[in-house]
């Protein structure tokens, strides 16, 4: 009796906790509302299954508890019942998988009008690179990293001149413009994670991974590292500041003097040759 009651309490308690607990996801600030929707669908389906299974179990424990003279029913299997349950489960699984795959297709298909930016991780800070007026990022290589070229940008690439490098600072983004972030790491694995954007992706040394999103709300959001990267892992924080287009342009103008060309004087001589 007590056991059945506790089982019921667990099922009901879990649902109540889900509904009233103050701990829930942060208000979304990107276009990935679909992800939230898929999570909601999954919550509904899995929640229903959880409650059904536990309540049925509680019923069995109460109804078929040992009493004098009770004998269990002998029934090795019931094919029909088992097949039904299998099919229903299959349908439930498909109902979660289908929207999931559909949204994943969107998640990995970068829109054509997305602006390239670079997010660069090293132990334990974030750096960023914005393309500047030409709208394009120069190529880069970890082997080129040096004190005056912290991101290892290829100086021979003419596109490097106007790239804006922001070291250990804040990433500014214009609102409602899709962004394709190219992710690079100098040393170990990191993971670019902004809870409000929902999206996250690893930065892998030796390769360039990517992620895309459209900020949909202005404000300041925290960048966290979500892949263990050594003892400084929790301290690896950054900020992303989503601004109105005009504010963003104004900020970019301010930053123009810190473009790669100005930042590293010898870069000038480097590019003078190919031109």
């Amino acid at each position, binding site marked *: 009796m007590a056991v059945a009651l506790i089982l019921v309490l667990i099922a009901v308690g879990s649902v109540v906790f889900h509904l009233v607990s103050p*701990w829930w996801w942060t208000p979304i600030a990107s276009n*990935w509302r679909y992800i939230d929707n*898929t*999570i909601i669908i999954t919550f509904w389906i899995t929640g229903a299954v959880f409650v059904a299974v536990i309540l049925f*179990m509680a019923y069995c424990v109460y109804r078929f*508890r040992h009493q004098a003279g009770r004998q269990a029913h002998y029934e*090795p299997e019931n094919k029909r019942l088992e097949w039904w349950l299998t099919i229903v489960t299959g349908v439930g699984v498909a109902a979660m998988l289908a929207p*999931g795959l559909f949204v994943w297709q969107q998640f990995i298909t970068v829109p054509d009008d997305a602006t390239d930016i670079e997010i660069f991780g090293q132990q334990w800070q974030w750096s960023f690179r914005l393309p500047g007026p030409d709208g394009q990022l120069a190529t880069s290589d970890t082997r080129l990293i040096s004190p005056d070229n912290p991101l290892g940008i290829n100086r021979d690439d003419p596109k490097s001149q106007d790239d804006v490098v922001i070291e250990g600072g804040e990433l500014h983004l214009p609102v409602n413009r899709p962004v394709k972030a190219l992710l690079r790491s100098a040393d170990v694995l990191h993971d670019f994670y902004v809870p409000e954007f929902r999206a996250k992706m690893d930065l892998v040394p030796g390769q360039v991974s990517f992620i895309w999103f459209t900020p949909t709300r202005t404000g300041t959001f925290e960048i*966290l590292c979500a892949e263990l990267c050594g003892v400084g892992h929790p301290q690896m924080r950054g900020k992303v500041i989503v601004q109105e287009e005009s504010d963003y342009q104004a900020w970019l103008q301010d930053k123009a003097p810190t473009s790669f060309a100005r930042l590293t004087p010898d870069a000038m001589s480097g590019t003078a040759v190919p031109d």
Partner: protein
Amino acid sequence: MVDVPLGSAGVVTAPDVEDVELYHPHSWVTKYVFSQDAKVIAIQYAFVALSVGLIALVLSWLMRLQLGFPGVFSFIDANAYYQFVTMHGMMMVVYVLTALFLGGFGNYLIPLMVGARDMVFPYVNMLSFWIYFLAVFILVASFFAPGGPTGAGWTLYPPQAITSGTPGGQEWGIILMLVSLMVFIIGFTMGGLNYVVTVLQARARGMTLMRMPLTVWGIFTASFMALLAFPALFVGAVMMLFDRMLGTSFFMPAMVEMGQPLDRNGGSPLLFQHLFWFFGHPEVYIVALPAFGIVSDLISTHARRNIFGYRMMVWALLAIGALSFVVWAHHMYVSGMNPYFGFFFATTTLIIAIPTAIKVYNWILTLWRGDIHLTVPMLFALAFIVTFVNGGLTGLFLGNVVVDVPLSDTMFVVAHFHMVMGVAPILVIFGAIYHWYPKVTGRMLNDGLGKLHFWVTFLGAYAIFFPMHYLGLMGIPRRYHDIGDMAFVPPSAHTLNAFITIVALIVGATQLAFVFNLFWSLRHGREAGGNPWRATTLEWQTPETPPPHGNWGRDVPVVYRWAYDYSVPGADQDFLPQNQPGPTRATTGAGHG
């Protein structure tokens, strides 16, 4: 109905009487230390694994103290914290759960349940344990090595695992960890060959595959999977050891560490992740399948009812075992691998939910119309279903590629895998110990202490890990030594963390009651007799309890029926042991199949 020629499955003749003489140990050392008796080896495995479990428990306390009360305990700095996290994870997954289920329960139960006198290669079996012991020794030694144990996280992802920004990365920690794992795998392979070949070759006359208890099926399938999956970890460990010690570049790309370029080129960190998870995901099922098998038998015995849908249960076990080899990259959705893999791995991962769900249905359908005795093992089995269903369902979040994106690497993942492969299998281990302790020692464990242990452990563990999901949903990443101040984290989340820590301390302390019970009942427990649970399977039918070396006295048993003849209509008692010939059961109720 298919007519099966029984015995084509491989049966052995009862050994001659002279052979039985072989099973007399000659000295104290060969009986208790370098014993070749699978049952003694099982107890050795279980004792060492449970001891490692206690160390891992203490480590989890230290982690929780830091998370619940950050900054209060100054000796838990970031270095120490990551070392605790890593050692706790690796110890629990490999050295406790795998060793306990396969080395402990496998050794004890396989020969007894299939009606063999011992494992087929007893000497190799003994070596297996001592090599495991050596692996544990190396692992624990890393606590005392310069720089301490590795703090790379149990996933040991390079380049981080072997660089100086990680505790033990450029010191002894990571080397000892890798060597210990390799030694463990060698030892396990010896044991695993035994478990598999014993099931294949040493079954008693009449014990066809489909008459085996699900416990044997679970351990057999898991052993086979482990034999094929552990090499992946071995390969990864060899390559990482080369990278760390000989300067090769298997996993090390060109990189600049703290401003210093390292002399490496062209390694692929993702390659390690593929190898690791090619082992790591089957590993989840290597722990889960024995638990599935054992819990099936616990439920069936204590509900006095045959396991519902036995055939489906066997097929589901095999299907899960096979599928688990093609889902590994669902741990890598946000790893930067080719994003198109996501479609394939999300699909296979969610398909695996179907056979798993079938197993859950059949467990609760076994309860239905049963005669449920709420003994301590049964309570643990019920608790297993609750936690396993909970953890399994959150697995559907993480397996569904796009849902995984926001949740991956957050506390949600931590809560999920602790629920599904921490709490759930451990509840089964407890249930199984309460269930088989009478066979091992001849005495029952104390019931009152058992119930106290059960309620605190079950409700406590649920209270620890259920709310933890919501911290992850909020966005708190895992493996943070200190959450610090994040704008989106309300103060109530810190209160929740403190609450979780306090519950964890209580649950941990209650395990001492269990340990006490284990030792106290050895002397003072109620005499159990040979078959206290009135169970059908062969291990309860031994002529002596505890069974001596050789198990069966003069004659090995002959098997006449499957393992689940409970409450057969027309029988004079509510169970028919597998080795009991006739009476022919009433044909009514023989299934709708």
